[in-house]
């Protein structure tokens, strides 16, 4: 997906969420994730056991490990490289570790996952 196009689309918009359809919910494994490749970054979309979805930049605040490849549990993901635990909702490292990853709003409607780019 082209982020510049997206940004253009957003210009003139007063910061309202623009929901973009990304994938059918059942295409993401429960307690798993998918990766959306954009021009500027990879975005990880996670699905929890209770079918909540979360989206964030696919980059661990520690050493940029791909969070999409981690193990999802509750509403957090453990980074595959050095086991930092990241809160899916806020993008913040849990426990004594400090750091934060960009998050995007995500929702499910009629079995389809949408992400808000703003």
């Amino acid at each position, binding site marked *: 997906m082209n982020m510049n196009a997206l940004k253009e689309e957003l210009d003139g918009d007063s910061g309202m969420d623009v929901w973009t*359809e990304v994938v059918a919910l059942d295409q993401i*494994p429960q307690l798993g994730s998918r990766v*959306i490749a954009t021009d500027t970054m990879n975005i990880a979309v996670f699905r929890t056991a209770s079918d909540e979805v979360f989206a964030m930049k696919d980059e661990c605040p520690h050493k940029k490990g791909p969070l999409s*490849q*981690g193990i*999802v*549990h509750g509403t957090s993901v453990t980074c*595959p490289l050095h086991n930092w635990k990241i809160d899916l909702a806020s993008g913040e490292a849990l426990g004594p570790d400090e750091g934060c990853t960009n998050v995007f709003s995500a929702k499910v409607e009629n079995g389809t996952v949408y992400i808000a780019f703003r």
Partner: protein
Amino acid sequence: MKEKLVLIGNGMAGVRALEELFKHNTSSDKGSDLYDITVIGAEPHPNYNRIMLSPVLAGEQTINDIILNTSEWYEENGIELVTGDPAIEISRIQKSVITESGKNIHYDRLLIATGSTPFIIPVPGADKEGVLGFRDIHDVQTMVKASREYKKAVVIGGGLLGLEAANGLMKQGMDVTVVHLLDSLMERQLDKPASALLKASLETRGMKFLMEASTAEIVGDKRVSSVKFADGSEVEADLVVMAVGIRPDIELAQKAGIHCQRGIVVNDTMQTFDPLIYAVGECVQHRNECYGLVAPLFEQARVAANHLAQVGSTRYIGSMTSTKLKVTGIDLFSAGEFNEEEGDEVLQMQDVASGVYKKLVLKDNVIKGAVMFGDTMDGTWYFSLMRDATNIADFRRTILFGQHDLGDAGHGEASAVMSLPDDAEICGCNGVSKGNIVQAISKNGIFTLDEVRAHTKASSSCGSCTGLVESILASTVGEGYDATPSKKAVCACTDCSHDEVIDAIKDHELKTMDAVRQFLEWKTPDGCAACRPALNYYLLARWPEEYQDDAQSRFINERAHGNIQKDGTYSVVPRMFGGLVKPNELRAIADVCDKFEVPEMKVTGGQRIDLFGVKKEDLPAMWKDLTDAGFVSGHAYGKAMRTVKTCAGKTWCRFGTQNSTRLGVKLEELTWGSYMQHKFKLAVSGCPRNCAEATIKDFGVVCVDSGYELHIGGNGGIKVRVTDLLCKVETEEEVLEYCAAFTQKYREEAHYLERTAPWVERVGLTYVKECILDDEAERKALAERFKISQKVAQVDPWKERADGQASHEFTPLKIAG
């Protein structure tokens, strides 16, 4: 409406119970989901680390350093905190607590954690100014103040607390005499030789001793001026510290009619005779024991919290404790019953010149007690052997030389941890120095290895420095360090140990992860990154034909069937059975590398070829080409059977006694595809020159003229361990059978992430031999079960994925629209 929980005693055990309670929250809110909490404390401080009063007295730390819970912590967690206002009455009829200042606080549940009070010997003059115990901040402040104005101090009591007080006062510049009733110091923790070494060592620092002296009177006007003994002798003193013992503080409970003996009597869920009232800490008497160290108290706190949170699945069953003295520069360790009785055996080592003494008391080759002085590096190891009741027969001859004598290439030599400089690197993986660790411990009030890992990352990667970190922890926090809770839980999601999980799966025929978590009352709905892979494995190993593997419970390497690299790409290692390879296979690999622009190829230490830096989305196509050329996955990424390393053997080598390459290929054909608790490696050497390094493998074969020597439990990685000889057999068929049986025994019983080396050390070689050698039927049954599970396991995951399985794993999303 939340219920009301009141805690009396703002000390270490009580507040720990609250912290444990908060962990049971189902929401992410701070504080407790279930209770409104009020804490009543007699001292004017928030909860602090009482253990650290000794270093504070010695001027090594400040009061601020030892605060465990700041006032903000109480606020954030919604706790109403009453300080400097002791509870003076519990009304069980009105369910309320009355404080000295007249507050009347209602409770639905009450937790008593009043600790203990120092015992003051009731001799004439004991109430004079300048006579005190050693228990709280106030005592320390009084002592420090006295040290500025006065010179001579007498400490009555040559136990742990007395010696720490004496050391501190000496550091504050006082002239200190320790008075002890018996003829040896710390008689409850040390035997006579260790005690003598300790005394000598303290004397060289300037401490004076009066042994076998019975205090008769404290002499002085308003303030003490001397101490008089039963034999009529006398020493001058401007300050007298009584450290002769503690008494559980049960006054309040007793007055309220709660059943007390030496302490407040509680059951296994930490409830007193009034089920609404719980008690934890030093004030408690449980199964006839009162404890005076924090490790057991923290276990009590955990159980009480579990019950208060209405989870109710755990019981406190008592603790084993070990002792360390917190006097900088003196290494001392003691645990269990260190004075031998009839029928016990003693292992002892003494090196007078270097001041080292070690003694182990054994009964039937199980450690009952240990005393060490001078070199306490292995204290925690002995303690865990003791707790696990490990049969030490197999390494009895070397046990006194320590764990590293069993094979430790990493840090074996770094014995006296405390003598290391602050900048010494302890954790080589994460670059953590000793200073970092000590600082993190004191700053964050840390008591456990897990907490050190979380805060510093030390010991959280390869784990080879765990022993060192444990030693630093132990010598920094003293005996409070709970290295060895009575059992070790799988992770924070449960209180069950690995063995309990394995047994439950087997005995109750639990066949899904949810069933296990429900049956064992997991605290989290879907586990965590630590327990999910373990449960998934245990189920797979127990029910190979029924259990459906859960990809989301596998670490990424096993889910993507390649090793994740630091830049997020993957590596690909095709299997080369026995290290043999044909020209057309090499050509196929070369072609694949050209086609997918593989940035680097390397011959591995496992006799095959690694292709680095492959993009995830290219993996299935690349695997297609490789499987077409006849390769299967090498599982170089898995907790799985890795490689069978072989040497040239009889076919070519002038020394070869058997066909080691052919046997290697057969073994690899037997075992490939099998998932394990950890990686598993084999090797076959054609003669005792052992070019395939078979004696550092999980299962190694050394061919000899008359047959095959089978070796087990070797490890060439972080901690080198040479194998143990299992037995010698005569035919290749037997090698295969014994290999299958051994592998299956390990697969069924070891803990997840425990390699064969630590497993064999834990259960003992004798046990493994009994199962594999002595019982032919059992061996055959094991081998048979291995073969059954291999039927399912030997499906090449690469081919499946090349054919389209789990394609979502490898395809990034395109956005619709």
